């Protein structure tokens, strides 16, 4: 499928370091490369602190990249300013994790949605803009009367829909969804995920879907990348990754997902993962997972493994392969 599609976003050797006073460099994203094809959903998973959110925020330009290159539709977007930044922001939008903190409580829902259109001079005139706001509200499953209300009048799931309507207001092509459902209840999560899938089919959107809920990521994504301490350890088509994980970390991560079926869950063998994620400050070369890996070799502690294609576009960064 994705083979004959064009690359929309290219991430090449992206690094994002944060300087910590007196301690050195926090290597949040360290040499990460991947491509996102037009029209697909690219899932990015990992545990908290692995750099997945930083990665998303760097791509959209909220953080300046330390080094490496980002391309959008063939154009270099690593360091944008002025007209080019404006051009990119019209095409790429973001949906945030916390629907309570990401909407301005002093603006009406209509104003929140209209802000983006105003910035880009879309739908000029009061009437067309109102019409567009109502259209967007309908698209995300809210009523047009909601435009005059304030965010506090809505539940978490409804607020997330407002956030989605705001992202769609500028007719973007690419949306970064940063944990869009993790703050919601199970029954509401399904509503939002269905909405995202439907919008993608109707509007031809491309998603970068960042989450730690592994079963939801599998459900929504075409391809999934797994991050561990700033490194990309495995990347494959979503079905292949879940049925045949190759990296020891991915294997442990997937075995730890609780399965909502008592007969399977009670017999399941969780691969024990000793210890905890290490510190991402001033990392030395070597596989970041080596200290917890049950199959670590001497080489793993010295040499950082490269991401290798093992065929069928299944990429792994591990010395075992």
């Amino acid at each position, binding site marked *: 499928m994705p083979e004959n599609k064009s690359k929309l976003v290219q991430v090449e050797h992206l690094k994002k370091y944060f300087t910590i006073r007196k301690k050195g460099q926090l290597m949040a994203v360290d040499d990460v490369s991947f491509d996102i094809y037009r029209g697909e959903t690219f899932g990015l998973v990992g545990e908290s602190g692995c750099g997945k959110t930083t990665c998303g925020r760097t791509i959209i330009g909220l953080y300046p990249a330390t080094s490496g290159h980002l391309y959008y539709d063939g154009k270099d977007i690593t360091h944008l300013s002025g007209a080019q930044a404006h051009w990119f922001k019209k095409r790429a939008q973001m949906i945030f994790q916390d629907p309570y903190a990401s909407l301005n409580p002093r603006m009406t829902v209509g104003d929140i949605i209209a802000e983006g259109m105003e910035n880009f001079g879309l739908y000029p005139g009061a009437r067309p803009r109102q019409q567009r706001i109502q259209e967007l509200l309908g698209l995300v499953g809210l009523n047009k009367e909601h435009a005059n209300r304030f965010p506090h009048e809505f539940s978490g799931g409804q607020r997330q829909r407002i956030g989605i309507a705001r992202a769609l207001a500028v007719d973007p092509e690419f949306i970064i969804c940063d944990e869009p459902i993790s703050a919601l209840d199970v029954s509401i999560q399904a509503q939002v995920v269905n909405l995202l899938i439907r919008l993608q089919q109707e509007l031809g959107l491309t998603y970068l879907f960042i989450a730690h809920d*592994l079963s939801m990521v*599998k459900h929504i994504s*075409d391809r999934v990348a797994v991050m561990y301490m700033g490194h990309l350890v495995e990347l494959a088509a979503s079905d292949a990754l879940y049925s045949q994980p190759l990296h020891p970390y991915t294997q442990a*991560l997937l075995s730890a997902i609780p399965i909502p079926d008592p007969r399977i869950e009670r017999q399941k063998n969780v691969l024990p993962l000793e210890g905890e994620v290490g510190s991402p400050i001033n990392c030395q070369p070597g596989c970041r997972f080596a200290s917890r890996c049950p199959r670590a070799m001497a080489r793993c502690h010295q040499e950082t493994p490269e991401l290798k294609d093992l065929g069928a576009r299944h990429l792994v960064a591990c010395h075992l392969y």
Partner: protein
Amino acid sequence: MTKQLLEVNNLRISFHTYAGEVQAVRGVSFKVSEGECMAIVGESGSGKTVTSKAVLGLIEPPSGEVKATSSITFAGQEILNFSDRQWRNYRGKDAAMIFQDPMTSLNPTMKIGRQIMENILLHNKISRQEARQRTVELLQMVNIPNPEERLTQYPYEFSGGMRQRVVIAIALACKPRLMIADEPTTALDVTIQAQILQLLRNIQQQEHTAVIMITHDLGVVAGMADFISVMYAGRIVEQGSVIEIFNHPQHPYTSALLKAVPSLSQPNKAPLQIIPGTPPDMIAPPQGCGFASRCQYCMKICQQRDPAYTRLSDTHQAACWLHEAQARTAFGYQDVSEVFNHA
């Protein structure tokens, strides 16, 4: 035969707010026996945390009110009319709680060792030396490496998973007979979650502790619980053993909840079955069944009268009008699960 430890009967709790009386829990009854794990499952606002707080006497007047009709007995003793002194003896010793957020449930200005010892010294007449020894044992029990060293550290020096282990150690300090775990792994990553759940399972088996586990994660429930109570809008809508709930759900809410979670074997991007709408406002709870407005099988009576429980087996009961004989003959089915599977 296991001995019954806790019995909650017709528990009703309201909170008085400026907006009016919020009826958070509206008639909840359940039993927990020794060595058994009962899970309370439900969405946020369904009243599951409030229920568990009532078991520890943590509903504080004047805003919170446990209604006079309620009864909670622990080992045969009514606890709702405990004096302050009795509560202090009971909390931490007979029943202990593991809180959701390990980041906020520890005192940031106290060393870990003192926080654990506090509980031991309060309930036992032993010397500080012995208490310290017991603290080291506890930290070993929850698999914290170098316990002697860790005793003198502050919470900020621990990671999230390690803090949750400390919180568990505090709960275990006096070998409680009942442990309430309120979303113990929600704030943790999956690999750490697996470690903590394994730890809780081991402790439960070794110490024969009764556990009330509050969660919204059905996967966690599948691995931990013996019995499940599904709560919705302040009531238990269905109660049963873990197999009964997962394999033969008999309430539309339970059935819908189970289908709303994507399974790894399901084809990708297939629409998930959703529960439309949002939970009702508990200031003005609906007259009939709380789930009626979101239920796809809603009948006229569902909006008028709250359904009573239908007993389906010794352990399994559900509150839904679909179990009524009249509904069965009108729609022509034997078992309610037939209806759910058709949709």
